[in-house]
């Protein structure tokens, strides 16, 4: 029986290893056909910013990998509105993440859903398993 898994991302990328580790766990977990959701709040919203270029730092830019999540049926990506606003960001600053909806003639749809903190609290409550990064 499939369980509801939520991965909670609260850290900025590159400063610590949490963001990359979370993404790797999500991709591994996706192979087990569970009901997966991702939440990005606090500094975690910085993981999804467009235009990351790490060549001068000599570390891997893993942000393009988020675009592959749709192909792994990971298409519930919740971004907290309050966290974006506190950082002077809008949805336009984030990567365009999409998936093809098999129940709707493979129409391309947005994976990112902007939610309030209160809505995110409900989403957290509705899970079977919550993994924090």
């Amino acid at each position, binding site marked *: 029986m499939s369980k509801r898994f939520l991965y909670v991302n609260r850290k900025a990328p590159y400063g610590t290893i949490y963001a990359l580790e979370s993404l790797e766990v999500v991709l591994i977990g996706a192979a087990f056909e569970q009901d997966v959701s991702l939440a990005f709040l*606090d500094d975690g919203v910085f993981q999804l910013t467009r235009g990351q270029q790490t060549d001068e730092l000599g570390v891997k830019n893993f942000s393009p990998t988020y675009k592959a999540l749709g192909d792994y049926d990971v298409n519930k990506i919740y971004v907290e509105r309050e966290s974006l606003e506190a950082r002077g960001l809008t949805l336009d600053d984030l990567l365009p993440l999409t998936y093809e909806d098999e129940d709707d003639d493979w129409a391309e749809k947005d994976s990112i859903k902007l939610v309030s903190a209160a809505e995110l609290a409900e989403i957290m409550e509705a899970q079977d398993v919550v993994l924090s990064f």
Partner: protein
Amino acid sequence: MLHTVNKSPLDRNALESCIKHVVQGSAVLLIEDGVYGAMQGTQKSPMVESAMKEVSFYVIGPDLKARGIDESRVIDGIDIIDYNGFVDLVEEYDKTQSWL
């Protein structure tokens, strides 16, 4: 004195504490996740803008770039430098304090 801050001001209080302990003529250098402190329009930018009246602020360009922060979004008056500039600052000031 040169102060370096490598934590996001929206996650930790390293930058806030640093700003409370700097004296006029000092410099604050934002590195790694500290570069989020150089962004305009965040909850913390008013704190930085006010501190800039007393001390000079610098930020590492490659750290901004890695995080997708365009130079146009950096607070006006913060100097964007590279790693050679980092070395120059360390040489210019008699000592360095890291706010970890």
